[in-house]
């Protein structure tokens, strides 16, 4: 037993990573994994888990620190080097080529050949079948990856790693995209692998999963390690305290909501994605003036599709959505904004900011055409400067000046720029999609407080968040999305507990249609 304790298959010592944009994603992190264990790497989004694992898999190089595999110091300059050391990774966003078949994807980079130069397709298929059988991971070798379900894609990813001789498997939030059955199946497969002597690093922030299958866990917060623990000897409360910190959990004080008229009215939205997967079905709800309606749910249950549709990024198959009676489904973003809708987008680097533009330029992107910022054909620079200085001050954006480029800011301050713009346009409806993901505690608290203030001042708020604490604490009432359908509606969030929420979020329970129907306040 003593021997086994010291049998560390992976050790990372004093790892610091500074990205070219100046963000320090890891600061002096120590991390180690024992042979043959399932080890959880936990932390909120942006805590630095992915960065740490990218370095272990050779996708990024540490700015400082050393990595040891099987006790030997290694330089992992590329995934190839990592694979050579027996490390394989299953990424959160699948690393698959959609137009290739399952077998082609699996043998990519190590293709069996015939006649010296051609691909031996038959052998590739056989190899796939052989490994699939050995590890009990059922896949269809000849199907195009574009056409297979998500669960199978994940198996393809795991097979890809195993076939390359991986003994250490890194799984980056593997259950985020899976159904309950698929998750259960995955866990059986992982335990099976563990029994065969494989080591698994399991990135997650879902407590129940961690408790269920891991032996030990490492918690990260704000780019630093909060320590390594035996799963059996640490309570969920303790984990959650280490992960999120108590201050945030008790951070928000708010009065009872007094909702009035319906602002956003969504009826019977249906959406089928390109691979013919039904992502939303029969989604109907109302958001009223003066309330925060939260949408909870495990990611990938239709939240993104729903928000995209409300902001003209996708077209639904059918259904309607109106803001104060006006159609938003067929309106352009310009028209939607003219109706007084603001969006804090989930993917802030793509939609929220122009990274090489200045803070000032980012703050006026939705209002630069307004009369107050223009004098005839020219900009009224004085008014623009005053506006941006005011917003920088009101939203405590830490910066050198309004002329600083946004990409030079920290994640939290970038989000503050987005929020400053979206919250200050006197909106009638704010859609906040993962508004505090991956940002520091201070900025998180600030943004949450602003959201509450705005709703109490009469704005309708639709809050979409995968962060259960956030969505439960901020929302006045709440719906749960599961499998593209509304699984539950809670008019009052003060009596909720996570256990019950979890059951709805994971599809173990579903309210009756009548109960759910109460979220539509207007018939």
């Amino acid at each position: 037993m003593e021997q086994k304790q010291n049998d560390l298959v992976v050790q990372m010592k004093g790892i610091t990573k500074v990205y070219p944009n100046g963000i320090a994603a890891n600061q002096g992190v120590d991390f180690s994994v024992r042979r043959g264990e399932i080890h959880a790497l936990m932390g909120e989004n942006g805590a630095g888990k992915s960065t740490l694992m990218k370095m272990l898999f050779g996708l990024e190089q540490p700015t400082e620190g050393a990595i040891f595999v099987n006790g030997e110091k290694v330089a992992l300059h590329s995934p190839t080097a990592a694979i050579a050391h027996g490390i394989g990774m299953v990424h959160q966003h699948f690393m698959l080529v959609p137009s290739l078949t399952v077998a082609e994807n699996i043998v990519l980079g190590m293709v069996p050949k015939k006649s010296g130069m051609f691909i031996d397709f038959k052998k590739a298929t056989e190899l796939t079948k052989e490994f699939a059988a050995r590890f009990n991971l059922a896949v269809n070798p000849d199907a195009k990856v574009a056409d297979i379900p998500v669960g199978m894609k994940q198996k393809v990813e795991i097979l890809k790693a195993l076939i390359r001789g991986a003994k250490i498997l890194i799984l980056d939030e593997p259950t985020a995209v899976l159904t309950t059955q698929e998750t259960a199946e995955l866990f059986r497969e992982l335990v099976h692998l563990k029994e065969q002597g494989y080591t698994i690093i399991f990135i997650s922030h879902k407590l129940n999963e961690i408790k269920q299958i891991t032996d030990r866990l490492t918690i990260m917060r704000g780019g630093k390690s909060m320590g390594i623990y035996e799963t059996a000897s640490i309570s969920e409360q303790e984990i959650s305290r280490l992960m999120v910190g108590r201050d945030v959990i008790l951070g928000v004080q708010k009065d009872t909501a007094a909702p009035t008229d319906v602002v956003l009215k969504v009826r019977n939205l249906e959406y089928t994605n390109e691979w013919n997967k039904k992502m939303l079905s029969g989604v109907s709800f109302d958001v009223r003036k003066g309330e925060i309606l939260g949408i909870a749910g495990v990611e990938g249950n239709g939240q993104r599709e729903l928000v995209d549709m409300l902001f003209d990024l996708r077209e639904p198959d059918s259904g309607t959505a109106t803001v104060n009676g006006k159609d938003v489904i067929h309106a352009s973003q310009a028209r939607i904004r003219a109706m007084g809708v603001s969006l804090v987008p989930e993917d802030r680097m793509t939609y929220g900011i122009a990274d090489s533009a200045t803070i000032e330029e980012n703050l006026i992107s939705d209002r630069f055409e307004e009369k107050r910022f223009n004098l005839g054909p020219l900009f009224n620079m004085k008014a623009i400067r005053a506006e941006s200085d005011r917003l920088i001050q009101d939203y405590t954006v830490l910066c050198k000046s309004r002329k600083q480029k946004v990409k030079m800011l920290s994640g939290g301050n970038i989000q503050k720029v987005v929020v400053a713009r979206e919250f200050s346009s006197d909106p009638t409806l704010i859609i906040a999609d993962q508004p505090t993901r991956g940002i520091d505690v201070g900025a998180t608290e600030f943004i949450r407080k602003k959201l509450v203030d705005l709703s109490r001042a009469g704005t309708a708020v639709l809050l979409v968040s995968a962060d259960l604490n956030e969505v439960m604490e901020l929302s006045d009432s709440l719906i749960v999305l599961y499998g593209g359908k509304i699984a539950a509606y809670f008019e009052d969030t003060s009596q909720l507990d996570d256990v019950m929420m979890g059951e709805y979020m994971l599809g173990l329970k579903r309210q009756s249609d009548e109960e759910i129907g109460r979220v539509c306040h207007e018939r």
Partner: protein
Amino acid sequence: MWSQLLSTILKEEFLFSVIRITAPILFAALGAVIAGKAGVTNIGLEGIMMISALFGVLFSYWTQSWLVGVIGAMLVGVLLGLMMGFFALKLKTDIILAGIAVNMMGTGGTIFLLYMFTGMRGNTGALVSPNILIPTINIPLVQDIPILGSILSGHAILTYLAFLLVWLIWLLLYRTPLGLNIRAVGENANAASSVGVSVLKIKYIALALSGALAGFGGAFMSMYYSQGWNSGMVAGRGFIALAAQAMGRGEPVGAMFSSLLFGLAQALRTKVSGLQGVSSYLVSSIPYVVTILGLVIYAASTIKRVKKARAEHPEVKV
């Protein structure tokens, strides 16, 4: 006038000339296909053709061997492709700008190099003799078939190579590990690199192959088509090749058909401009107008598919 035109078009020489004119475009278009499959826009094809056309003539003159000339031209194409790769992949120059730079070298740099090597200006008239031009071959049996024989037989060796390469490139892309890697890199570079396929290496290889193909195209132009190098000889064929690749949906066979379409337009231009009362200049613009129209038709037919795919997979290039 129209009946006159019709009677020229229906002759065998016309179809023969369509094939001849298509060949250099096809070489470059295949170069665009390979680069495109690896996710690279090679706008430098034009310049690569110019430069390798010059070196084709120079090498063949120096060695008095057409074969050395062709191989030399191809190798120059490879070098230029690798140079674009170095700047675009290593130093992160925008690939479009790297291509424009190669084209600049193609326009002025070639004149400079020609002078540097030979003291000649503008063209290589005096260097070229029939023995260093790419030979033509008659295909036994085929040449005896009536009509078809005189269309298909008697072309330059490189013309046959161009059409053979359509099949070879298809084979390369769809039947070899390298082709699998190229397609994977072009469609999802992260997927390729996550299994240890070096994205850089594959893109270098694709650019080198692309350069080699443009090099053949250049050799074809100077060592057969124009029988010598001159400063205006490529005349946008490298750019047309890009359009052919786009219209051919990035596939070798598709690119061949669109190249043939442009070959037809160009052949038509030579025929029509010989007719009375037709402006040779307006007729000269036909291939370029056809290209624009072709792109419009192609774009209009794909726009829906691409839009939907983009919305679903912003991370994957469509």
